[in-house]
């Protein structure tokens, strides 16, 4: 099961009008890994994730997941994939249990099975008592937890996460981190985009850095570090994405106030 290539991306390109967001991305992802997908704002992280989950269907290039063509066997692939979106947008007038029941049943799980799983997952996040309250009353972190739980209901082999840690408190961040590591141990593959460099540095087996629609660094942190000798991922990030003049910029910022 290990070291099997489960995602293969060949020359992935995507345009929004004249703007080319992804300019030819090539990636191979093996199972059981945690992959941190990082890059500056607007680099194309979310777009990649959305394409991989089948949310965006008009792209150029070839993507194979579990050995199947994403364009042809979208449904087969979606069955084994979990997706956690960036912005916690849910049906506010439903309760988490109702929402998850819906997601589970639409995915073909039985009602009882879904409910069972939902309760277990929510219990891990200490939200069992919130199961029957409307989502409208939840904080951002609670919503994020509901999203995580509903993406894991069907026991997916491959999980895509778009900023899964945004809005979570420190405890929950640690817990999600642990959860990701556990899932990877079980042979699941996790592909997540994030801005939190220290988290990415600590838990990722592999880091992919993209900028302006292209992969500019790819490898484990140690591998990457050997090449460049940066202290940490944050430093490497800023060096590679070309913003080394932070000091000057900060000064300019302060000057803007003085006028």
């Amino acid at each position: 099961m290990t070291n099997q290539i489960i995602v293969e991306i060949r020359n992935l390109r995507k345009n929004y009008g004249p703007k080319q967001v992804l300019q030819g991305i090539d990636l191979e992802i093996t199972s059981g890994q945690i992959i941190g997908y990082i890059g500056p704002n607007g680099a194309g992280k979310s777009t990649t994730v959305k394409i991989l989950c089948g949310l965006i269907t008009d792209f150029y290039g070839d993507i194979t997941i579990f050995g199947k063509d994403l364009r042809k066997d979208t449904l087969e692939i979606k069955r084994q994939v979990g997706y956690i979106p960036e912005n916690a947008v849910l049906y506010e007038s439903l309760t988490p249990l109702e929402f998850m029941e819906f997601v589970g049943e639409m995915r073909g799980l039985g009602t009882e099975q879904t409910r069972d799983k939902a309760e277990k997952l929510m219990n891990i996040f200490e939200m069992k008592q919130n199961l029957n309250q409307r989502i409208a009353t939840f904080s951002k972190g609670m919503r994020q937890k509901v999203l995580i739980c509903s993406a894991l209901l069907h026991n997916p082999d491959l999980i895509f996460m778009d900023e899964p840690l945004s809005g979570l408190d420190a405890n929950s961040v640690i817990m999600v981190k642990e959860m990701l590591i556990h899932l990877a141990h079980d042979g699941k593959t996790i592909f997540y985009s994030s801005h939190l460099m220290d988290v990415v540095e600590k838990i990722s087996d592999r880091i992919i850095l993209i900028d302006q629609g292209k992969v500019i660094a790819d490898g484990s942190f140690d591998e990457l570090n050997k090449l460049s000798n940066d202290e940490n991922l944050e430093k490497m990030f800023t060096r590679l994405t070309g913003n080394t003049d932070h000091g000057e910029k900060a000064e300019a910022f302060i000057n803007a106030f003085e006028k």
Partner: protein
Amino acid sequence: MINLILKLFIPFRWFIEKMGADYDQFIRILKLKLTLDDRRANKYSKKSKNAQEKTLIKQSFFQIFMGVFFAMFLIMIKTPFTFFYIAHTFLMAMMAMMIISEFSTILFDTSENVIIQPLPIKGNTISLARNAHVFIYLAMMAFCLSVVTIIIAIYKFGSLSGLIFVFTIFLNVLFTLFFANILYLGIMRLVSGERLKNLLMYFQIAIAIFFMAAYQIGLRMVDKTAIQEMVLPVHWFTYLLPPAFFSGLIEALTTLNFDQSHLLFIAEALVVPPVAIYFTGKYLTPVFNRKLMELEQGDRVTKIKIETAHKSLWYRMLSSLFVHTTEEKAAFKMMWKMTGRERQFKQTLLPTFGYVIIMMILPNVGKHGSFSDFTSGYKYLFILYVFMMVSFALCSALLIGNNQSSAWVFKSMPLKSPASFFKGAINAAFARYFIPFYLAVGTVVCFLWGIKVMPDVFIAFLSVYLITSLLYYFQQPGFPFSLEKTAVQGGSNAMKVFALMALAGVVGFVHYLLLRWFDFANLILIPLYCSAIYYVNGIMVYRKITWKEVDRVNDYS
């Protein structure tokens, strides 16, 4: 266009400032709101860039069109006072309906507070801008509705009275807006928080039904000869009726009659609206704002309640009757719950049931003839086919809501076709709201006309179900509750309602004709409708609602 509208406020700068608002900020907020309205429509219909403009034009056309109907009624009235009195009453009623059905969401919109409130802007400025926003749309509507009336007034009573009429329309809009503010504040005084929102919803529904009833009754009470000779007597209380102020003013200025009663009207017309709006701006809106804020906060605190699983026998029966696959069942279950909770959905749908009741009862009351005459004919068909009104309301209500960005859920799931979800959705809404109501009316009909009409009750049901399904599958396939209700929408909807009512008439009439011709019509109609329903729900829906179509309308980011 926006700049032109904003320029019209310049002469009233002193007045706006007098009410305690900062004029420059006021204009900026207004500009922001209008710009937002201008761009909102484009978000959904990606194809046409000027969709918003088109709907605005469509709506204006519809209002002018309605104005023609009204003017045809007015053209027979001889005395100017009565003429303008009725014109103003009509305008006020239309505006009140508009405020209730379309603009209350704008008046209660607190979404921009997050952005605007942290800025150093006085509450007064914000709420005045909000009122001005509504005012702009109301004024536009009022003028569209009265274009034809103005022309007739010029023709009948001279251009001077036409001009003054235009001026009084403006005053009328101001006054109606003030009235709406008072009304809403009154309700807000009584209750607060979550209960207020619910109460407002039911209040709006009640008002909408009331106006519909009043309109229907009004139409029935007049007959032509009476209209021609109609002269409104001036009683003491006439001086308290706002439409009378305005028509008194017009009459006085055109006939140069300045006797005591006319002077009183003039004074009222010129003083009451500005004073009312000043009072609104200065004293009411701060209270309104404070109440609105409580509303916001109350929402967060009081709403935590436990939802219990809903699995009654009734639900299970309907669910197994309407949906069959697991996907459809899941959608049905979810939508059953959501249709019971989404406020905007109920707000759009429930008044229609009121209309239906009025439409059923009114044409049959006050007519001469015995009860047995009534129940021996085919009148029940009319009663049953009136339900077609609900079809349209169901379909459009399902689109409107605040869940713009929840569509990703569907796209990330392994659904071969989104059709099963849409099927579950419309069936849940239909089953939850339509069935109980229809059952009740159907029972009454069976009781009055005898058990022999039962097949007809069933046929009418089938045809309404068929039309509802067709309508839903043919409207733009937005996911439920994902379309924002915008200020500019009403008109084109009303057009569709007219078309649908015509269709209901045709379907009902065919049913009637077949019944008259031979006794076994039912034996033809029932299988016919059943197979049509089978085709629409089993085959057509999968062809019509494909991912390609759905992707075009919905946004997954």
